[in-house]
């Protein structure tokens, strides 16, 4: 009981401790707010520019979720295809690794040439960063099916798509939902990076203009907001994961 309470409070203690330490360092070392603003200064900046920050944050959130949704759709589909067929997996492997190795910030200028400055390059960048872990996880889930499970179905005369739908897809779901948590945070990175390079709105754009005006507390306020959005979205998908694939995490349930 006491351990459960400790487990629940630890994340809060650590997070609050982090900000307290940050504040202490700024005060004790008398760091200029131009170099590193203290959490209180960041908070002050947030309260004075609340409307500005939140409207840009909303823009970033929409961009990120749009790119993420595309990534989920494509990642799931592509992951199923290459997971179901080792041949296709082999065929696409070099291209996949190649694409993932390209820093996504490097494709933003190309996207600007194609689509102009605005939301679309940010959505595509978010999509490009979010897709890879989903593809890999879904493919792994499919490719690691126990052969005995396949035998159970094959002796009944099951066709390949039946094995896929009855065993492959359900089996890949824990991998899929686990990847969503990672993918949503990566999507934030993608969209904010794109916004800093080529956008008229969004948290990334706000940060660039603020740093242009040497308003460092506002830059930090925007950074913290991105971090908070990431934590919230991660938690949302962690809850969805637990709901959808409770059977895969049963060991902890049984022990608890």
């Amino acid at each position, binding site marked *: 009981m006491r351990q459960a309470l400790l487990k629940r409070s630890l994340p809060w203690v650590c997070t609050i401790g982090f900000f307290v330490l940050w504040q202490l360092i700024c005060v004790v070392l008398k760091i200029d707010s131009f170099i590193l603003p203290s959490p209180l200064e960041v908070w002050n900046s947030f309260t004075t520019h609340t409307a500005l920050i939140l409207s840009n944050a909303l823009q970033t959130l929409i961009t990120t979720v749009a790119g993420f949704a595309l990534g989920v759709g494509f990642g799931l589909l592509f992951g199923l295809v290459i997971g179901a067929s080792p041949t296709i997996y082999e065929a696409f492997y070099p291209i996949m690794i190649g694409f993932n190795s390209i820093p996504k910030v490097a494709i933003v200028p190309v996207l600007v040439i194609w689509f102009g400055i605005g939301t679309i390059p940010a959505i595509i960048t978010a999509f490009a960063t979010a897709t890879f872990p989903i593809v890999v996880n879904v493919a792994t889930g499919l490719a690691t099916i*126990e052969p*005995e*499970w396949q*035998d*159970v*179905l*094959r*002796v*009944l*005369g*099951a066709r390949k798509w*039946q094995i896929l739908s*009855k*065993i492959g897809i*359900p*089996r890949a*779901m824990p991998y899929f939902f686990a990847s969503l948590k990672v993918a949503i945070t990566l999507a934030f990175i993608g969209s904010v990076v794109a916004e800093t390079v080529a956008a008229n709105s969004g948290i990334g754009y706000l940060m660039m203009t603020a740093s242009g005006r040497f308003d460092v507390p506002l830059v930090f306020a925007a950074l913290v907001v991105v971090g908070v959005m990431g934590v919230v979205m991660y938690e949302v998908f962690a809850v969805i994961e637990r709901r959808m*694939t409770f*059977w*895969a995490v*049963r060991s902890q349930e*049984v022990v608890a």
Partner: protein
Amino acid sequence: MASVKESIIELRNVTMSYGGPDGVVALAEASLQIQKGEFVAVVGPSGCGKSSLLKLISGLHPPQSGSLYVAGAPVSGPLKICGMAFQNAMLLPWRTAIDNVLLPLEIVDSHASGYRRKRTEYRKAASDLLATVGLSGFEEKYPWQLSGGMQQRASLCRALIHAPELLLLDEPFGALDPFTREDLWDVLQALWLERRPTVILVTHDLREAIFLADTVYVISHRPGRVISKTHIELQRPRQLEDTYTPAFIELSHSLREQIGLRKRR
């Protein structure tokens, strides 16, 4: 008793190997005939190709040479009349016990077409079957909420729900404790007496083989050869006490000797 029945499985000089013609020979020149409704047990030392025999008969793995007929037709791919159970229950963890049992009905052609329409009827049948193996009240439990013995019972139900003509059991009780195992012998015997499928049971356990089977085949150490065929004439339904009678012990001694002798040579 099994004199005028037709044979459902026929192997003539079948050799099977893994990894192509130069691979490991799992089964060498096996010949056997199994009659419709017969309960056959296959025993032998581990790694002798017992499980390979099941892969062969079910059509999951092709023979290297020789001919293999099931129900009068040569086997060219996975059969559709089989039910199969393994040493591990292999239940799907995302399905409840009853949904696991229903799985074959979603797959097998003759059932799958009318599956939606007959859903309630099928659920009733599955729940009745679970009740016969002592699992009533556990229909909605997930496999990981069941003990190993219960999982294996559910696995047996899954192998039987579509009333297969051929039931292939690959050491289904091997991972269970002796009491649960003997309990399930009774369950299996009762199910067999009621439905009379043809059963091929692969096992290490001589008592299990003699208790359950009409005919016990002994396979030698790798490469596996069929070295003996023994009819078990004990009266059915057999009782657990029968396993302690002199006749039973005599049978198990003679089978034990066949396995041991060949291995030493």
